[in-house]
Structure formats: structure tokens, C-alpha cells
């Protein structure tokens, strides 16, 4: 599907043309960003990978084939990073809370909150974590943010594994309740982000 014009940009890019690079960036940056956003639901992560991908395009420009498709080349150079990110993203506990939140709220398609991003959700999550006791917060963060196992946390804090489990369950319950009551707060956060952008 790529026209001769694109081919000539590829040729120029291979020779090290910064201008051709910029044209290609303009052509594909938004598409790539939309694709990443659909997978990560995070603006920040998606932006980071857009940047990485185009950096790789520049670095690997000499291996680009003129007859190949630029679109598949972009995919090839960043697929490992995308797959890893996608895997790790969907396995984050905070991310599952996010999916759960979106699901429970049951937004209809036109609802603005439907567009709530993971980034904004994390901010709300941060607020709701204030409800946790110091100990609960410590355990929650070790588990969810530092990825430590229950066993590791028990050893580190010198408490029983059962206590760690109980504390985590209580914390999650508290956070869930708080989040489902935070509808309005979300809107505010969302709007702040939206307007200041």
C-alpha cells in the first residue's frame, strides 16, 4: 500500500535525512500512539514507547528495506517492547483495579469517564490509599508496587504470611469501596488533567 512517495522518504531516511524522518514521524506517530493507548490505557507509557520506537527507527534506518512496508518495520522494531509492556500492564494489580472500576461504573459509550485513563486512575488510587493504616500501606506498596511475594514481605517485616494476606485483603476492600465512591472526584481530576493539557 505504500506509494512511491513513501519509498522516496525511506530512501532519504536511509541516507540520514532528518527531514524525511520528520515526515515519517508525522505520518505514523498518532497511529502508533492510538494503538499503544488501546493496549496500555496510559498516556505516559504510550508516549514513552512512541519516542522509543522512532528513536529505534532512526538508529536502525540502514536496515530498513525500500521494498518493505514502513508500517510493519515500525511494528517489528518495537514489538518486543510492546508485548512486554502489554503483559506486565495487564498483570498489575492496580491495572486490574482500574478495569474493575471502569466495569463497575458501567459507563455508556458517550460518557466522558469512559475515557478515564490509567494515569488518572493511579492519581485517584493514590488518594484512596490515604485511608490505609501505615502498616497496611507499607504491605500494599511492597506487594503491588515493588512486586514482592507474600513470603518475602513476611520475612522482611517479620510477621506471619497469614497476617500479610489478611492485611492485603483488608486494604483492597478499603480501596475498592473508596474508589467506587469517588466518582465525582474522578471527574474533577479528569477535568484538571484535560484542561491543563
Amino acid at each position, binding site marked *: 500500500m505504500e506509494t512511491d512517495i513513501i519509498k522516496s522518504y525511506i530512501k532519504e531516511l536511509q541516507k540520514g535525512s532528518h527531514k524525511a524522518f520528520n515526515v515519517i514521524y508525522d505520518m505514523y506517530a498518532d497511529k502508533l500512539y492510538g494503538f499503544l493507548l*488501546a493496549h496500555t490505557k496510559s498516556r505516559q507509557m504510550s508516549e514513552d514507547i512512541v519516542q522509543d520506537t522512532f528513536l529505534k527507527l*532512526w538508529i536502525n534506518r540502514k536496515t530498513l528495506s525500500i521494498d518493505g512496508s514502513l508500517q510493519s518495520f515500525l*511494528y517489528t522494531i518495537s514489538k518486543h517492547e*510492546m*508485548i512486554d509492556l*502489554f*503483559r506486565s500492564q495487564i498483570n498489575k494489580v492496580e491495572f486490574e483495579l482500574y*478495569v474493575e472500576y471502569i*466495569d463497575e461504573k458501567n459507563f455508556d459509550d458517550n460518557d466522558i469517564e469512559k475515557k478515564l485513563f490509567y494515569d488518572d486512575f493511579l492519581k485517584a488510587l493514590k488518594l484512596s490509599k490515604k485511608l490505609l493504616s501505615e502498616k497496611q500501606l507499607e504491605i500494599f506498596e511492597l506487594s503491588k508496587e515493588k512486586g514482592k511475594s507474600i513470603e518475602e514481605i513476611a520475612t522482611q517485616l517479620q510477621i506471619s504470611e497469614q497476617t500479610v494476606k489478611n492485611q492485603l485483603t483488608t486494604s483492597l476492600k478499603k480501596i475498592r469501596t473508596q474508589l467506587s465512591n469517588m466518582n465525582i472526584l474522578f471527574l474533577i481530576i479528569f477535568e484538571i488533567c484535560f484542561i491543563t493539557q
Partner: protein
Amino acid sequence: MENFITELYKKFLYSNISHDEFREMQHAINNSKDTELSDLLEEEWTESIFPGELGKKSKENIRAKLDFYIENDKKWIDKKRILQIAVVVIPLFIISTLFISKQYSIEEPNNFVVSVERGNKALVTLPDQSKVWMNSSSILEYKRGEKNTREVKLSGEAFFKVYKDKNHPFIVSMNNLQIEVLGTSFNAKARIGSDIIETSLVEGSIRLRSPDLSQDYYLKPNEKAIYSQSSKRVQIMHTDNELETAWKDNKLKFSSERFIDVMHMIEDWYGVKIICKCPEIENDLISGAFKDENLESTLEAIKIQYNIHYKRNRDTITIESNKYEN
């Protein structure tokens, strides 16, 4: 990929997925291989266009960062040529310190390459005051990253004494493997053509990671990580750092290594070519230690101990075994 997974995946992409369906998808994806996942994603990438625009500000932000990199890169290509010619023919066994920024009058270079030829060694001081001892046949590329991260690429063997700066991680890349450190000393080895990448830690702590590895690995002092690029596995074991880093103090040391591997070490060490006509002893394990010895006396010592004889023709040495003679 089964149909129902594709369905769930699409629902997820358009944020129409229920919590239960999400868990089902998560489970299915955790049980799929990267190749299956790659096909799934690639199809979407080719077929669909998703809503979401970068926004003018972000788009220009990213462009500015890319521009910055590219301009630097283009300048660097010219400088690199000069440096490659200028840098380094260091006499055998004389380790000298290069203050590259002063010697080559390039102001605070962001990127440079040091290459050490066979039979030579070099001690390099990087702009951040980290020190790198480079073993023979090694190439080091230094790059000051965007957020002032310190990045080097290594092919060959080097010992790093990294200047402590906890705000700016120091990253050593060897092919697909990355070692991330804050301030510490360690040895790293990725010989050209070898499947194995090794690193052993003297002090501090380091982290190993690679897109090919499902987890990061952390090393403690006196541990050594061996990474096989073909099997994508990391093995961590206890090690003797005295032995690992002997080379930087001009000690040629080996302990229970295969005869043929030791011959390769000697080739690199003295910058010679060794032809081994001795298949029957190639796999024998041998040990030894030499400090500041010349090639002749090293070979003599091995000759007496392991019952070989050798002929030297300039830089080529032919070794034959006496094992089955008499």
C-alpha cells in the same frame, strides 16, 4: 490464537471488557507465547486504527527529544571517525590512563569509542570519573544519555569501577543484556562469537536485565552470572574474584580451564596465533598463574607441565602434544 481470546482482546482494546472477561483474557495471554501474542498484535496494528491522538504539545515534545538525539548522533558520526583513528595503540603490558576529554580537546564528549587491539590493554577514565580497565580485543562505546544516564556498550572484556552517582544509573549493554548499576565494581565479558555473556561482582550490587528474560536478576558480591544468549537463561554461581579480575593486574590466571580455552586466553593476551595440533589434550583441565611473564616463559612453563612442544614462527605458534610419543 483461539477465537474467543481474540474477541476478548478486541473488547479490551475498545475498553468494553467486563472484569470477569478481563481476568479470562489475562489468563489466556499469560499462557500464550510471545510469537502468538505478536501475531495477535500485528493483525490489529495492520487492520485497525484506534482513537487517540498524541496532542500537539506531546507530539512536539517527543519530536524535540528525537531532534536532539538525531542532531547529536549526526555530529557524532563525524567525530567518531577521528577518534577511532586517534585512539589507542598501547604498548603491551603498559596500562595508561586516557583522559579523553583533555587529550582530544573535544569538549565534554557525549559519545566516544575506545577500541583495544589484541595483545593490548587500556585503562580509560570516563567523563563521569568511572574507571574502566579494558582487556585485549575489546571495544567500549560510551554515550551520555538524555537524562544524563551513563550508557556504555561493551564487546570483549572489561572491569568497571563505577563512580557513585545514585541519580544517574550506569548501564552496560552487551548485545541484548543490560547491567544496571549505581556505584560498584564488577567484571563483564562478552567475547565476539561467544554465546556466553558473563559478569562477576566485586562490590556493591548490580541488576541484569534483557528483553529476552522474564525477570531481572540481582547479583551479590562474589557472585557471577552466566547468560546464554541462545537458551536465554541466566545461571548465578559463587565465584573467586581474584581469579576473575586477575587480568587487570597483569596476571594471567586460570583454574581448571580446558587446555584449548587457555590457549585462546594466551592468544588474546600476547596477541599471537596458536595452532593446536593436539586434539587429545584439548579438553584437559589445566591451572596456572603468570605475572608479567613474556610469551616464551609462559609457553616454557606450560611445556614442562603438560608435556607439549611448540614451534614459534613470528606470531604463530604451533603446539603439539608429546602424549603418545615414545
